């Protein structure tokens, strides 16, 4: 059962022709409070790090096993990682994303990173527990029901095993990746997660460069995914970390780059400010390449709707969302969601906007 189809919030004369002062937008107490809540985290400066070239499963469409980075030599020396983290701190990095291929297979390195930089997240398949002393958020990837997991990831009982490993763990956020084929299966996953009080957020399959497989989204699957996301948000309000605007931004016919002009170095030649200046994507040999640097390297930028990319790309577009109370509320919901998903201890508030606000054009 789906909620009635939601149209994007129309830009009528009442909300586009009036030129709002930022101060007038903040005159709404709820907006002001949410703004003050999220802006405390503007100090976050992220980079990402591939920890090992090993993984205990092999998933179709995995971004790690595309391109050259998969062939980088592993550096498993904790002291080398410590020195890298110390240098990163000096460079101004305050937040680390530890990813590819499966970070749980390198627990010593995770511990070392955490000792040096205390804010971060680990992208894991959740099949191996990460020690509780590593106090990062842990994003556990879920790709559908058990049958789909067997087909796409070659692993059985994935969600059951993931929940066993992370039941009651406040670090865990289960990241459900919508593909063209698994949209309705979210309900099975959410029933299991709701039973154990787990938190979930949504990702969109974003095709690697050259990918021609069956998981790539179509206009119809994007539409259906948006409806389903909205329905699931309403059905499982205590378990889902998401917002109406998150659904719009990630299921739009245009990808994130076209909508928001991606600011990762790979698509942004400027190193003057922001992500273009500070972001690096380190390979397992602790080298990085500016031309390839983004949070999901080797993804087809035109198809990128990845949750991690949006967390930086949409969030960075504060200025163009400060046009009117509805649009700014939608952006605040997006940022509130992002922080709840990525920052330990951050509690998401109730969404300010239920409208499907259209992404604003550049001002």
């Amino acid at each position: 059962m789906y909620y009635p189809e939601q149209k994007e919030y129309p830009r009528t004369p009442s909300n586009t022709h009036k030129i709002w002062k930022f101060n007038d937008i903040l005159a709404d107490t709820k907006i002001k409070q949410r703004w003050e809540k999220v802006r405390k985290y503007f100090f976050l400066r992220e980079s990402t790090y591939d920890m090992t070239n090993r993984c205990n499963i092999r998933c179709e469409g995995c971004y790690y096993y595309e391109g050259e980075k998969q062939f980088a030599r592993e550096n498993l020396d904790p002291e080398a990682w410590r020195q890298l983290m110390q240098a990163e701190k000096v460079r101004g990095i305050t937040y680390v994303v530890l990813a590819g291929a499966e970070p749980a297979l390198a627990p010593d390195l995770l511990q070392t990173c955490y000792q040096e930089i205390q804010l971060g997240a680990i992208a894991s398949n959740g099949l191996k527990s990460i020690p509780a002393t590593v106090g990062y958020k842990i994003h556990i990837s879920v790709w559908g029901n058990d049958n789909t997991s067997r087909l796409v990831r070659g692993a059985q009982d994935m969600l059951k095993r993931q929940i066993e490993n992370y039941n009651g763990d406040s670090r865990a956020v289960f990241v459900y990746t919508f593909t063209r084929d698994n949209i309705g299966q979210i309900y099975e996953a959410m029933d299991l997660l709701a039973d154990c009080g787990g938190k979930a957020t949504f990702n969109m399959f974003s095709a690697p460069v050259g990918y021609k497989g069956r998981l790539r989204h179509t206009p119809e699957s994007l539409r259906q995914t948006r409806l389903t996301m909205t329905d699931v948000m309403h059905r499982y309000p205590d378990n889902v970390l998401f917002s109406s605007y998150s659904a719009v931004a990630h299921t739009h016919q245009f990808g994130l780059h076209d909508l928001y002009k991606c600011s990762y170095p790979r698509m942004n030649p400027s190193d003057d400010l922001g992500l273009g200046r500070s972001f690096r994507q380190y390979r397992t040999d602790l080298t990085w390449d500016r031309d390839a640097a983004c949070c999901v390297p080797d993804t087809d930028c035109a198809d990128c709707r990845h949750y991690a990319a949006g967390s930086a790309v949409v969030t960075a577009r504060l200025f163009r969302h400060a046009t009117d109370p509805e649009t700014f509320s939608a952006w605040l919901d997006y940022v509130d969601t992002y922080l709840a998903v990525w920052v330990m201890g951050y509690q998401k508030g109730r969404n300010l906007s239920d409208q499907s606000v259209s992404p604003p054009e550049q001002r």
Partner: protein
Amino acid sequence: MAVETNKLILRVAEVMIDELKLEDVTPPTFSPDIDLVDEVGIDSMDLATVALVLQDEYGIRIDEDDYPKLTTIRLIAEYLENKMQLKT
């Protein structure tokens, strides 16, 4: 012109200190030529926040694409001055 620029420099410094909660600096002691990105550590979100406040105050528009050029308080003040002149 120089007097106006100096006033603007002080005001931009004041907004920056207030909005970004900078410590150990006051508008008169905030060097207008210090590199805000390299030496103060401000980022695009910080600059957007300051830009929104300055837009309100001076009734001009600061384009997102211009952010990379606004790397010192003096450059921001001169940018505002140019925008206000174009308005009149």
